[in-house]
């Protein structure tokens, strides 16, 4: 019976892996067929030599970094203060952080355009609106990562210990809280990075240069280069995940208390 269960587990796992990897493998092989009759990295070379790729991708990286910075500045103090001062609000805030999963991006972007396209909030053309939008979209990942990090440390006692030593709020946040949730912040940051790099609707409808709209345009124009870009995009995401895993493994966050 147990042996039968194990075989079924393997079968299900293999089907899952094939379901995920076969299209990726097919895309990768397809991306190598830019030159007739041989497998080559020509499509990749074409992508990297295209100034439009560099231009759009650079902007996406800029939006991603800005989103991460804004996210950290906004969500770390919020999650910290909610945990410390108003823990009753946690479930309500958790619900709010999940709204980007519920509200379709297209509804969200039209909401942004309608709200911010006339005075006194005429900022529809400003990159700030795009970054604000990305911050909202990455909120489920960023906020929850930070909240999970805060859960792994005894926030209240560490705060009180720092206060009793004379530390103010700034010192507590920068000296004690941030370093102890570094892995959680990194994890949220890389997930946000992946979200922003692959996001299409916001950049398209707010008319800002970005990688995803560029890739969508290329799909209509070329055959092999979009496949190469899809693989590049996957590679970047995986590299980000790898860095999270690497940093996470090298920095086991010490528990407060315990021991003997």
């Amino acid at each position: 019976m147990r042996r039968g269960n194990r075989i079924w587990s393997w079968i299900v796992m293999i089907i899952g892996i094939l379901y995920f990897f076969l299209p990726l493998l097919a895309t990768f092989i397809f991306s190598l067929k830019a030159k007739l009759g041989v497998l080559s990295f020509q499509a990749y070379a074409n992508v990297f030599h295209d100034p439009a790729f560099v231009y759009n991708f650079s902007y996406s990286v800029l939006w991603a970094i800005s989103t991460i910075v804004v996210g950290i500045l906004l969500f770390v103090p919020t999650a910290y203060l909610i945990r410390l001062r108003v823990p009753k609000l946690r479930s309500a805030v958790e619900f709010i952080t999940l709204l980007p999963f519920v509200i379709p991006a297209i509804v969200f972007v039209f909401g942004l355009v309608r709200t911010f396209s006339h005075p006194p909030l005429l900022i529809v053309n400003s990159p700030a609106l795009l970054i604000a939008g990305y911050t909202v979209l990455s909120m489920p990942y960023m906020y929850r990562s930070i909240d999970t990090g805060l859960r792994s440390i005894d926030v209240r006692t560490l705060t009180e210990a720092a206060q009793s030593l004379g530390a103010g709020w700034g010192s507590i946040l920068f000296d004690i809280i941030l370093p102890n949730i570094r892995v959680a912040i990194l994890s949220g940051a890389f997930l946000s990075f992946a979200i922003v790099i692959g996001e299409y609707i916001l950049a398209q409808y707010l008319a800002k240069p970005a990688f995803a709209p560029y890739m969508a345009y290329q799909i209509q124009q070329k055959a092999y280069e979009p496949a190469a870009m899809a693989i590049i995009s996957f590679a970047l995401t995986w590299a980000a995940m790898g860095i999270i895993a690497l940093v996470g493994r090298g920095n086991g966050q010490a528990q407060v208390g315990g021991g003997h």
Partner: protein
Amino acid sequence: MTHLTLSNICKQFAGTTAVEDFNLEVEKGEFVSFLGPSGCGKTTTLRMIAGFEVPTTGKVTIDDTDITYQAPNQRNVGMVFQAYALFPNMTVAQNIGYGLRIRKESKTAIKERVTEMLALIHLEKKGNSYPHQLSGGQQQRVALARALAIRPQVLLLDEPLSALDAKIRVSLRAEIRAIQKKLGITAIYVTHDQEEALSISDRIVVMYEGRIEQVGTPFEIYNFPQTAFVASFVGTLNTAPAEVVDPAKHLLKIDGVQLESAEMLEDKHAGDKVTIAIRPERFNFIAQERKANILDCQIENITFLGSVVRIQLLIGSNRFYMDTFNNPFLELPKIGDKAQITCSREAVLVLKA
């Protein structure tokens, strides 16, 4: 000279009174323990001294300076927590020096003070270790050094030994007391462990349901409990309902047996109902002729507790305990035997209602 004063302190949380009319004066260099069961208000009172809670009414002063509404980081009060609360991202040396770094002391001064503190807690070689590399006892010593490094006016310790095993608890409490005496620092220590409080303190404040039950030296608290709660909470105590027979002669009666007490009973009248208390170790088997405090009893059970033997007795309808030193050459009565025991008149305490 009074160093720390708590005057008429009350603290309420959403209509529930956590601390009620708390008054205490602590001398400089004194070691005072707050002792009581969970929820008695001892930690809340400590947190009001630290500034983590603001009293609903009342005043906290240190050296005549009112600090009642001062933020915790503005007070010069060191605190040691039950959960150690060492900063996991900092080394032992960085933890100890953190308060001085916040005070913007020079690097040389911080280094000197950290070295001094490490020597004080005998962890000279652990300066570069991280908290998770230390045992619980070592972590708590670092927490103590960190609290002392800032030269606080008052040191607060919130059940600092609760998370440690019994053997380390005993050695560390002696170390804490030795360091406190050496530095002459005023310390307030919160504990629910009576043995800890009795062994370490200059004075003990016994608390129950937010109120002070009794303040006194460990000797006074143990030997002369003033209330039924203190009597029951500190040590083992036999209590029984009694009736005043003759207040002038200090005579009482339990289950028809007359007892003489040394307590003043002027405010009592013959026939008044009172509660008497006798420590188990104050009883003896009658070895010679006595005229007073002779109690007929039956042995119900005998328990060996190492150096002490605890004998359970039935005196009338009251169940009492008697402690006697474990002497292998002394013949003890057997279970079911009838015997006579006695105690001095000073051992018979009359508790306040």
